[in-house]
Structure formats: structure tokens, C-alpha cells
């Protein structure tokens, strides 16, 4: 609740700051201060949920999970501002507006992690989506950016419609919007409820870019200004997942009904893993590779949605943190380069050892190699799926795909360390270096002691 209010207010304040403050550097400082305040405001709720969660106004449930997830989302955004805040200026004039839109998205995410009413779910998804349509088209002079925005808007509105249809059907079956009281577990399953669940699953799968609802992803991620792609592919995607997970774990997990959607989602997961990984292999641009890699990683996060247990909740938090940190880091380095192809990275290790080291550690994390946060993220979602008991085939598919993912992540490492070249790199400021080191430390610390994060749950 605190995080929701503080992020929404920060968004409004930043719009006005954008009007009155001319210096773009100062706007960035305002944004960083606002995100830190929101982070703290969110954490102040933690003592109140020690004994258990509680529901506010029948709409929002404050729980350890929601507080922790909000903290991860806000923390990742803070890192994002520190690493890439400067890039906002390059997109266009209205820096204040961009920051404001990011804060509105965050408000949607905090709602997504704590809704207890289907109306709130719908609002959360919409609040997350609409600013993204704007951000995707922020570079008004670029045709690709315009195309990305329009494509995203059309497809996004369509899937929102499907979500609404699903909600309506479920309301028809259950007679309530309160997610804890839907009571759909009874056997035989109500056909309206089943249709509703399937429609909702499809709509949410669209939001997290799961195959076969992923077609917008590569174009939108590639066309949008890189700095916003970085945010859309990480924190926002994690927000979509938390809504997905919450909806399905709280309302659809009991009784006979879960068997109906588990199979559908398992197939979606397998398809996401296979298609995402294989497509990423064939990319020539690192930015597009990261777009497909985000689809592939979504496959792993879907493990947590399917497997309903304690490991799944821990896994999604850890995965969100690990994946967001690493991807934001790689994007931050990418934006310092002129050439976004793999060849653009040739010889980076000689020229900028710190950038190369950071990228290597982030890519290790994405590939799930030990002592980086990504390893335990994968570990937890795999554990969740293995504990579920009937998903071993999916686990094996996942493991094979993880091995494939090494191929395209390591292509960047090979280019940086083992190939000769003279990449054009923008000047690196001291602040950027410090932020990069901070991110590396976070990735390694979470990779050694994941308990520091999930211990809060």
C-alpha cells in the first residue's frame, strides 16, 4: 500500500518537476531520491506483516511476499536509474515525463504483487501496460520506435480485452471478484470457470511474452529506445509474472481445477523455452538476442507459476531479482557501445576491462552458472518443478535449453575476450563504474548467499 501511494505520488511529482526544472541531471536526482523514498516506504510495512498478511479495503493484501517483491522491483529500478538514468536524455526532451511513466509502471507492479480482487488485477495490468505503450514510442523521430509502439498497443489492448473476458466469465461462475473466495475447486469443474481461466492464462501469457503469444516481443524490444527496453524486459516482465503467479496460486490451485490448466501451461512453458532459446541462437544483434533471451527466461519463470509450492514463491522473487539485475546490467553496457552486433563487442576486454568483466558476470548469471544470482534463481524454479512431482519431463527440457542458452550468452564473452577488435565505447563516468561495481557485488552476493533475500519470506 505504501509503495503504491509513494510511487504514484512520485510519478505525479516528477511530471511537475519536468515542467519546472530545466537541468536534466537534476531531474534524474529527483527520480533517484523518489525511488529511494518509495523503497524505504515499502520496507516500513515489513514489521506489520511479521505475524501474517492482512487485507486492506477488500482490495489489497499486504503480505511478506508482496512487500519483498515490491522491494525487489523498486531496488532493481534504483539500480536501473543509477546505471542508465543518463541515457534518458538521449531519447528526447521530456526526461521528466519518462521518469514519471516509469513510476506509474511501478505503481502497477506494486498493485500486481498485492491485489486481492480481480478488479485490482485488471487495474494493475492496465497501469503497467499503458505507460509502456508510450515509452515504446518515446523516440518520436524513429520509425522503428513508432512501429513498436503501435504494434505493442494493438496487441496489448487485444490481450487486455481477453483478460477482461476471462474475468467476466469467472465472475459468472463464482459470483464474486474476491480472489480468495472464488472457490472454483469443486468437482465437476464449472465450464464457465474453466473458460475464464484459460482466457486469463492466455492474456497473462501475452503480458509475459510466453510462446505462442510472444510475437510482439522481438519487434517491440528491438524497436523501442534501448533504455526503455531494458526496463520493459526486466522489472515489468517480473511484474507480469507476479500477477500471473498470484492469480493462479491463490485462486486456481485447489482441487480438480489445477489439473486442467497445469497441462496447458506446461506445454506453453516447454514451447517458450524451446522457441526462445533456439531463436536467440540465430540472432546477429545483441539487443535482439536479449529480446529472445527474455522469452527464454520467461520459460523458466513459468516453472514457478505451474509448480504451486513454497519454492515457487521464493523462486519467483529470486528469479526476478537475478534476472533483472543481470539484464539491466548487460543493457547498460550495451548502451555504451556504438555497434549492437556481436562483432561490436570484439576486443572489449582489452579496452574496457571493467565493462567486460561486468558483462561476463551478468551473462554468467543469465546462463545460471554458480556463484552468481542466476544459479540459485534457476535452482529454485527447478526445485519447485521437481517437488511438484509430475513435471520431470519439463525439467529435462528446461535443462537442455539452459545448455543451449550458454551458446548465445557465451558468444558475447568470446567476442569480448578472445577476439581482436577496437570497439567504439562512449566515455565512462566514475558514477557509472561505481554503479556497475555495486551491481556486480549484488549479483555475486546473491549467488553466494541467496538466503539474504529469500530469508525475508
Amino acid at each position, binding site marked *: 500500500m505504501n509503495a503504491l501511494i509513494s510511487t504514484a505520488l512520485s510519478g505525479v511529482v516528477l511530471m511537475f518537476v519536468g515542467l519546472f526544472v530545466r537541468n536534466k541531471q537534476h531531474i534524474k536526482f529527483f527520480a533517484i531520491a523518489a525511488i529511494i523514498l518509495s523503497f524505504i516506504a515499502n520496507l516500513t510495512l515489513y514489521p506489520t506483516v511479521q505475524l501474517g498478511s492482512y487485507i486492506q479495503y477488500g482490495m489489497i493484501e499486504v503480505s511478506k511476499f508482496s512487500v519483498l517483491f515490491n522491494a525487489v522491483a523498486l531496488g532493481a529500478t534504483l539500480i536501473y536509474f543509477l546505471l542508465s538514468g543518463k541515457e534518458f536524455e538521449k531519447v528526447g526532451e521530456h526526461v521528466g515525463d519518462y521518469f514519471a511513466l516509469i513510476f506509474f509502471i511501478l505503481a502497477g507492479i506494486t498493485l500486481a504483487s498485492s491485489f486481492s480482487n480481480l478488479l485490482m488485477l485488471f487495474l494493475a495490468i492496465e497501469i503497467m501496460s499503458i505507460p509502456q505503450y508510450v515509452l515504446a514510442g518515446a523516440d518520436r523521430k524513429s520509425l522503428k520506435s513508432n512501429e513498436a509502439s503501435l504494434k505493442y498497443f494493438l496487441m496489448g489492448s487485444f490481450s487486455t480485452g481477453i483478460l477482461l473476458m476471462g474475468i467476466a466469465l469467472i465472475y459468472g461462475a463464482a459470483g464474486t471478484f474476491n480472489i480468495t473466495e472464488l472457490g472454483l475447486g469443486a468437482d465437476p469443474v464449472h465450464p464457465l470457470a474453466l473458460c475464464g481461466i484459460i482466457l486469463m492464462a492466455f492474456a497473462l501469457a501475452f503480458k509475459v511474452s510466453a510462446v505462442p503469444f510472444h510475437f510482439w516481443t522481438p519487434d517491440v524490444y528491438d524497436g523501442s529506445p534501448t533504455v526503455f527496453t531494458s526496463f520493459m524486459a526486466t522489472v515489468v516482465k517480473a511484474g507480469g509474472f507476479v500477477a500471473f503467479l498470484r492469480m493462479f496460486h491463490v485462486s486456481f490451485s485447489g482441487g480438480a481445477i489445477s489439473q486442467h490448466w497445469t497441462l496447458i501451461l506446461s506445454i506453453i512453458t516447454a514451447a517458450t523455452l524451446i522457441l526462445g532459446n533456439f531463436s536467440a541462437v540465430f540472432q546477429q544483434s545483441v539487443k535482439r538476442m536479449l529480446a529472445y533471451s527474455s522469452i527464454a527466461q520467461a520459460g523458466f519463470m513459468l516453472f514457478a507459476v505451474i509448480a504451486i509450492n513454497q519454492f515457487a514463491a521464493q523462486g519467483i522473487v529470486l528469479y526476478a531479482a537475478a534476472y533483472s539485475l543481470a539484464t539491466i546490467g548487460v543493457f547498460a553496457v550495451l548502451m555504451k557501445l556504438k555497434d549492437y552486433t556481436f562483432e561490436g563487442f570484439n576486443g572489449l576486454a582489452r579496452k574496457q576491462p571493467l565493462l567486460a568483466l561486468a558483462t561476463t558476470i551478468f551473462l*554468467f548469471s543469465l546462463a545460471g552458472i*554458480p556463484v552468481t544470482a542466476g*544459479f540459485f534463481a534457476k*535452482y529454485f524454479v527447478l526445485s519447485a518443478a*521437481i517437488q511438484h512431482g509430475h513435471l520431470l519431463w519439463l525439467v*529435462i527440457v528446461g535443462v537442455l535449453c539452459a545448455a543451449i542458452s550458454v551458446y548465445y550468452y557465451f558468444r558475447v564473452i568470446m567476442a569480448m*575476450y578472445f577476439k581482436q577488435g577496437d570497439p567504439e565505447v562512449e566515455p565512462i563516468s566514475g558514477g557509472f563504474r561505481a554503479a556497475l561495481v555495486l551491481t556486480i557485488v549484488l549479483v555475486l552476493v546473491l549467488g553466494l548467499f541467496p538466503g539474504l533475500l529469500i*530469508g525475508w519470506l
Partner: protein
Amino acid sequence: MLTVLLILIPFIAGLIAFGLKGSGPKVLGMIASLASVATAIGTVCTLHADPKKLSFVTDWIPQLGSQFRVGLDGMGTMLCLLTAIAFLLVFITIYNRDIERPNSFYGLMLLSQAGLVGVFTAFDALQFYVFWELALIPVYFLCSMWGGEKRIPVTFKFFVYTFLGSLLMLVGIIYLYFQTPDHSFSWTSFTSLQLSMGDQKWLFWLFFVAFAIKMPVFPFHTWQPDTYEQSPTPVTMILSGVMVKMGLFGVLRWLVPVLPEGAAMWADVAIVLSIIGIIYASCIAMVQSDLKRLIAYSSIAHIGLMSAAIFAHNEQGTQGVLLQMFNHGINIIGLWIIVEVIQNRLGVKNMDQMGGMARKAPRMAIFLVIISLANIGLPLTNGFIGEFLMFSGLFQYNHWFMAFAGLGIILAAVYTLNMIQKVIFGEGNTLTDTTTDLQPGETVALSLVVIMIFVLGVYPQPMLDLVSKAF
């Protein structure tokens, strides 16, 4: 605490080495490896006096029930000793060589040593997995940065192979974790599991594939000759001397004790694969003209015999394997040192371009003959006793298996003698006429190898006593 020290010495030295310049890294590497050998000898003494002192447990991830749990038994101590000696030999040999970017080279070498010792001392499955991966990553960078022409695709293949294997193992580890009553990763919980036959049947393959890729056993061996050929020779020494032992160690420490019935059930398959590997690799070795590939294939053959003897699963076979793990490590490193010397002098690896080196480099020739003969297991050398025990173990299990595996010895003699003849005897040529004999550093390293060959060949009892100490 000594055990922790064994990991920490190379780890910290490795991190420091990255920041040093000039001859700093190699001096540090030498000091660190001497300290490691001293510590390893210390653990041998402690193991005889008070084995409990070698264990160390502290919480790591309490939410998962995973602990940082290190300990040493006879096998672990032997392998740590081998690791320490191997790195010392490598560092002595390359002390006078000019290496590009020595700080990264020594840093990565020392980090891989830390990873290897971590694997050999881990008694917690998750920690074992983490070290298993950590040992691989520095080696990947070493091979890719200092290797031969085709190094990048070759080492990448190596990496993906082993990574896939270890991910399968991770699935197995997580599955076993959920079967333990107290949800723990410790070795004792894993070994006290009473798994059903149905579970063991498929879990066996998750672990076996991971270890078989590392050893490597036929048909998972295809990464190995390329990698050995393309890697810089110091790294090849570590790969073939110590890293392949990770696979054997994994089978002995984790696979057989945790899944005994699975191992017994698939033993025939595993042994047949190993024996195919022995004969196949030996045949290829006979027609190799590339010196590095020849030794790589001979290594596949030797490892094949060890893996067959493990799955024969009897006292003698296992003892032979334990003994041979150490001896094979020493001998193959000795051979690689000579290859390194030849490459350094001649700049070629093709045996057809060599010949007549005995006249120009008599000391090297003597060392080559002794080490090669030890490698094929001549009596009075260290290779003999281990092979004898392994064959008698295999014989008890099945006569026919032993007979086919025995072919390997004959073939080994053929390609080894052929290699000796081509390299050091015969007519010299313009290339070999300019060669020079061993330098002091190389002589010291090879003398150490030969001393160990004879001491362990004549009096293997101390080593047998050491390796038979169970945890």
C-alpha cells in the same frame, strides 16, 4: 581447518595474482603451490593421526539445509595431494617461459586449483556442484585465451558438453534432496537414502552422464582430443592429470555410494562402454602422428580401464583405481612436460617432423623412455601395481571383460613404443638438429616425476594405506 586452508591458499593467491605485474605472478604461483603441497602433506599426516580434525562444517544456506561441509578421507587426501603436486610441477616447468599476460594466466590457474580442491573435499552435494562448475570456468578461459588456432570453437564445445552434464546432475541432486527425510544435502543423508529400484534406475543416468563426460567415457569423449590438442600444454597437464579425475572421483564418492543398486544394475553397460573406449582410443592412438592427440587418446584408454574397474565394484578393483588415479596423474603430467619441452624447442607437434632427439637431448630421451614405460605399466614402475589390481578386480567380475580390456595393454605398448621410436630415435633432421637438452627447471620437474614413479613402483604400500582409509 587444514582442509579449508587447502582451498583458500590457491583461491586468495589467485585473486592477488590478477593484480601483480612482471615476474610477480609466477613467483606467487610458485610460493602458493609450494604452500599447497606442504598443506597437503600436512593433511596426509593429520589423516593418519586424527582424521576428525580434517572436517569443517558451517552454515551456508540455512533455508535450504545446505551447509559448507568439507572433509577428507583417503581418496580425497590423495587427490588433493595429486592436485597440489600437479600444479607445482606445472609451475616449475613453465617458470622460465614467457607467457602473455602472466597475471591472468597464473590467476586463472590458481583459481582452477581452488575449484578442484573444492570438488575433492566437498561433502555437501550442492557445494560439490558449485565447485564442480567453478573448476571448469577458469579452465575455459585458460584454453580459450592461450590455446591453439582452433581454440575458441573447441573449448566452447568442451564447455557446453560439461555444462550440460552437470545440469543433468543438478536435477539428480535436487531430486535426491527431496527424498532425504531431513531435507539436507549432506553426503551422509544422501548415502543413507533407501531409494527404490525404479528411482535408482534412471537417477543413475543423470549422474553417470555428468561424470562420463568429464572422464571421458566413450561415446562422450569427443570433446577431449580436440581440447587437449588446442589447449596450452600447461593447461592440458591439469586437464588430463587432475580434472579427468573429477569424473572418477564423482563416481566413487557420489554415484556408487548413493545409488548402489543403480550402479550394479547398469554396471555391465558402463563397463562395456569403457572397454569400447579403451580399444577404440588405443586403435586411434596407433595411427596418430600428432603427439598431443596421441597422448590424449592414450589417456582415454587409461581412464576407460579405471572406469571399468570401478563398476566391477570389488575391493581389489577399487583399490587399483584409487592407486592408479594418483599414478596416472603423475605419469601423464610427466609426458606432457616432455611434450611441452619438445614444442618449446621445435615448435611442432607432428611426430613425422621429429626424430633423432636422443643424440641432441639425451636427458630428455631418458626421461621420456622411463615415463612412457611407467605409463604402460611396466613392473617396478608405479603404473604396474594399479593396473594389476584393476585387472584382477575386473577378472573377478567377468573374465571376458578382463580379456578385452587386456587388449588395451598390448595396444598401449604398440603406440607408446612407436611414439618413442619416432620422437627420439632414427635420423635427425634440420629441425631436430638445433634442439637443446633440458633446462634446470624442467630437469627438476621431471626428476620429481621419475622419483615418484620408482618409489611408488617399488613400495606402493604407503599409498595403498592412504587410499584405503574410508570416511
